[in-house]
């Protein structure tokens, strides 16, 4: 579980995060949604320890990340998996080597054991035939799956995904969403996803936080999002006619 309390972050005069408090639960897909510029990416980078913050605290299972010694921070980071928006695969390594990378850095496994573990994870993301390919030879969807495989190969306790569906076709996006959701439940990971893909919200949103102008404007589940009267949320989520109609149909059915 990750607990964020009263988080404030500024860049010079610009106050980006204005006292955000939120709990991200273990074994759940926790989503952060909001318009571009609402502070989602800054919030995620604060969670990851890539940005310092002025006020507040971030606790990973009761331990305040900022108070940890450098060694403990490094140990904590070994428990974190991250899927970047652009996948961030290492260009000079093959797909298999990319997946083996966290094992090489943080474990004392033999090369064969690492390879075996990488194969299991690559199979889990349906990429058993792509080991020797370079990242540049893989499609966007494949790269995302490799990034997920790399993020989970070392059995992380926490998984962070920044826009995991960006640039993917709707079918591949659903595959990625379901994969993340299944992995979260299977390995009991605390997963935090930064997205503005409404399909993801409806499909896998166990716990959703809506950010607006650096403030937490709403919190709920994918079911709550149909019923909410919060205008800020409905204006954002149901900005397309299709979603408006879907919402009306669901509400009508539930009456």
């Amino acid at each position, binding site marked *: 579980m990750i607990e964020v309390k009263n988080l404030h972050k500024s860049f010079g005069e610009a106050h980006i995060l204005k006292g955000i408090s939120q709990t991200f639960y273990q074994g759940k897909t926790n989503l952060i949604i909001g318009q571009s510029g609402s502070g989602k990416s800054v919030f995620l980078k604060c969670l990851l320890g890539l940005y310092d913050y002025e006020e507040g605290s971030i606790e990973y299972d009761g331990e305040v990340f900022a108070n940890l010694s450098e060694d403990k921070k490094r140990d904590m980071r070994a428990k974190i998996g991250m899927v970047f928006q652009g996948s*961030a695969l290492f*260009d000079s390594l093959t797909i298999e080597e990319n997946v083996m990378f966290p094992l090489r850095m943080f474990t004392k496994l033999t090369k064969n054991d690492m390879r075996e573990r990488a194969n299991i994870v690559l199979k889990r993301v349906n990429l058993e035939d792509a080991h020797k390919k370079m990242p540049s030879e893989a499609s966007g969807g494949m790269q995302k799956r490799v990034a997920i495989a790399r993020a989970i190969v070392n059995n992380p306790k926490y998984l962070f995904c920044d826009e995991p569906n960006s640039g993917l076709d709707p079918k591949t996006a659903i595959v990625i969403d379901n994969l993340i959701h299944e992995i979260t439940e299977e390995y009991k990971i605390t997963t935090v996803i930064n997205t503005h893909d409404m399909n993801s919200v409806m499909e896998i949103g166990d716990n959703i936080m809506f950010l607006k102008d650096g403030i937490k404007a709403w919190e709920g589940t994918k079911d709550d999002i149909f019923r909410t009267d919060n205008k800020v949320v409905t204006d954002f989520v149901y900005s397309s006619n299709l979603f408006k109609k879907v919402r009306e149909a669901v509400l009508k059915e539930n009456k």
Partner: protein
Amino acid sequence: MIIEMFRKPTKWSVMKELILKDIDDLIIGSLGIVAFIAFFVGGVVTIQTALNIDNPLIPKELIGFATRQSILLEFAPTFMSIIMAGKVGSFITSSIGTMRVTEQIDALEVMGINSINYLVFPKLIAMAFYPFVISIAMFLGVIGGLMACIYGGYASTDDFITGLQQEFNPFHISYAFIKTFLFAFVLATIPSYHGYYMKGGALEVGEASTTSFVWTSVAIIIINYLATQLLLS
């Protein structure tokens, strides 16, 4: 950046492979162009020297002497380093810069890896082998000069070799290699700095490479001046 480079070192088994890869990219990969340039510039230095000696009282050995001094003291260590600022420096800046742009450096940081140590330290160690490149440049520069001298008919082989050995000061070799080590440090660190701390996209990677070439060259010229003043005057 330099202090950070020595904190939280990467696992030795991984670092060893990174160092070998950087030796291959930065040192072995540069040998071809270094050999080509050194050989022909050595030849040109000899021809220029020979063509400017029109007084019959000046001994022909001077051609070999001037070639040796030019190549050993300045051409091989200094001007080859400026050429390497273009080749090796741009490679370092663009490869690290691309990793910055595509969030690969963030990925390393998130995993708790000291990205400066992981990316820059192996390059610094690989560049410790840079004097090997320069010694090849020195050797081939002199051989190029000898070939140009023989095939151009400017002096006999004996005259050229006698000139090479005349008034040889072994400290000049030390001076050249002290400079080379300093240049190697500059060639590894300035381009890494420009790549690591760059912001923006693909266009900015190109700009960072150009800026790093300019600053590396400036640093080499200034260090060359200071080292010469301190060591030879």
